[in-house]
């Protein structure tokens, strides 16, 4: 979900007659406060997606910031010049105070987006969120029909519920983004997912290939697409971007395993993005806590958010290009991709300071690519579902006889 904020996507639609602010900023403003901040207000979620972007070590409900603490954070962010808030999770509507938080964001002048699984929303709740000033709803879909979608989500009746909430979103005249996370076990549904987004009257569709760290890395063998699947995916997306111009904007996040160059993850560490975890940690990336040995400051500390952004050790460790080893250090692309993803470098090489193995120049690239390719061709389709207990392996019954027949398509 939060991959929406990563820099590695191609955007469809008309060319920008109006400049996007990031692109016109002067060098001096490079580390200015980000325009948008992702708030992961809880890790609680009724879904159990095996590629969840939350860390494997989830923050428990008891550690979450209180309503007062979040409203204080929102006021501070507005004061600093942040313009947009993405309320995410976990499932943000699992917080009983979600309407109050959106209302406070509106009161202090912030533009609110909700990134949701939708399954907990009633029409009244959604309407109350709209009245509180919510401006955009982004709903995750796991497929285009319940058999695949509910199995991936690990929740019965989830898909039907999502369709219902998507419809209410448009009835309430809020713009809708459909977020589809793609992997080997649902890529065959992509053309139908695109049509589903059109039928739901969505404004945008994000086709985001799974990025493999945290839960997704644990599930890589069950999720990794084949090279042929990816080529077909890119073809389908490109065709749809042209065909649906003016109707549906399609953002496409490519899987970096099969790229030769790494993604400009987060637009570069500590350059234009931070998020705040349920327990109040200020992070350069939503997966950053997977990097052991880095200390992240909390909004509960004595430091201001501005201080943490500008001065904390964790934000400065991989900021810019000074930290880079070879082959990044002398690479002509070092300010294009900033060495790729630190979390992926850590997960795959044990050192976040190494070149992201997604880069063809990494000494580990060949080995990792070959392993992914082997996994993609394998028959290990069983998921390890995301939960607070460190994950639960999918049962044979579920895998062979997809659940939820009572709600067939």
């Amino acid at each position: 979900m939060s991959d929406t904020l990563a820099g590695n996507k191609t955007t469809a639609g008309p060319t920008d007659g109006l400049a996007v602010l990031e692109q016109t900023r002067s060098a001096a403003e490079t580390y200015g406060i980000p325009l948008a901040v992702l708030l992961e207000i809880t890790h609680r979620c009724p879904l159990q997606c095996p590629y969840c972007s939350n860390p494997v070590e989830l923050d428990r409900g008891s550690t979450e910031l209180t309503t007062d603490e979040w409203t204080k954070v929102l006021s501070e962010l507005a004061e600093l010049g942040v313009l947009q808030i993405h309320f995410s999770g976990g499932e943000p509507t699992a917080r009983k105070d979600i309407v109050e938080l959106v209302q406070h964001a509106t009161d202090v002048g912030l533009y609110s987006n909700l990134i949701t699984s939708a399954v907990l929303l009633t029409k009244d709740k959604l309407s109350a969120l709209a009245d509180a000033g919510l401006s955009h709803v982004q709903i995750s879909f796991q497929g285009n029909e319940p058999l695949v979608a509910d199995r991936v989500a690990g929740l019965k009746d989830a898909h039907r519920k999502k369709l219902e909430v998507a419809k209410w979103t448009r009835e309430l005249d809020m713009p809708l983004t459909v977020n589809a996370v793609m992997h080997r076990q649902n890529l065959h549904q992509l053309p139908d997912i695109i049509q589903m987004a059109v039928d739901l009257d969505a404004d945008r569709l994000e086709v985001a290939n799974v990025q493999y760290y945290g839960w997704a890395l644990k599930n890589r063998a069950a999720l990794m697409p084949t090279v042929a699947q990816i080529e077909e995916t890119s073809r389908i997306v490109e065709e749809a971007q042209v065909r649906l111009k003016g109707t549906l904007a399609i953002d496409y996040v490519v899987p970096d395993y099969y790229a030769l160059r790494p993604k400009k993850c987060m637009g570069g560490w500590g350059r234009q993005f931070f998020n705040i975890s349920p327990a109040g940690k200020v992070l350069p990336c939503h997966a950053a806590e997977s990097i052991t040995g880095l200390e992240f400051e909390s909004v509960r500390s004595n430091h201001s958010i501005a201080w943490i952004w500008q001065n904390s050790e964790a934000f400065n460790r991989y900021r810019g290009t000074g930290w880079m080893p070879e082959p990044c250090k002398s690479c002509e692309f070092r300010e294009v991709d900033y060495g790729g993803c630190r979390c992926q470098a850590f997960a795959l090489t044990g050192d976040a300071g190494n070149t992201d193995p997604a880069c063809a120049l990494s000494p580990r690239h060949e080995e990792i690519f070959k392993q992914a390719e082997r996994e993609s061709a394998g028959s290990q389709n069983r998921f390890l579902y995301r939960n607070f207990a460190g994950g639960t392996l999918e049962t044979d019954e579920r895998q062979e006889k997809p659940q939820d027949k009572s709600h067939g398509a």
Partner: protein
Amino acid sequence: MASRNISVSETSRPKLPRHTRLKFDETRQVWVILAPERVLAPDEIAVEVLHLCDGVRSVAEMVDQLAEKYAAPREAIATDVIAMLQDLADKGFLTEVRESTA
């Protein structure tokens, strides 16, 4: 529900939809348009035009007003204003108030 895929002409009465907000960013000292997942930085002329988009004024009236203010050829202004508004409309950041036919 707001109509999309609008075609901007002199008779259009455009306005920003509820989810598109024109705001002065005090921190960066620029006008911005806030939209889903986007922050746009319109130039001075675009800001002036957008302030006129109240759903009541027609594009023709806006063009008249701007042509008079800048003592510029009406035709050139009309071309620029319509192109700018159409670009915003294509992105879904502009809506139109239609005469009720009910």
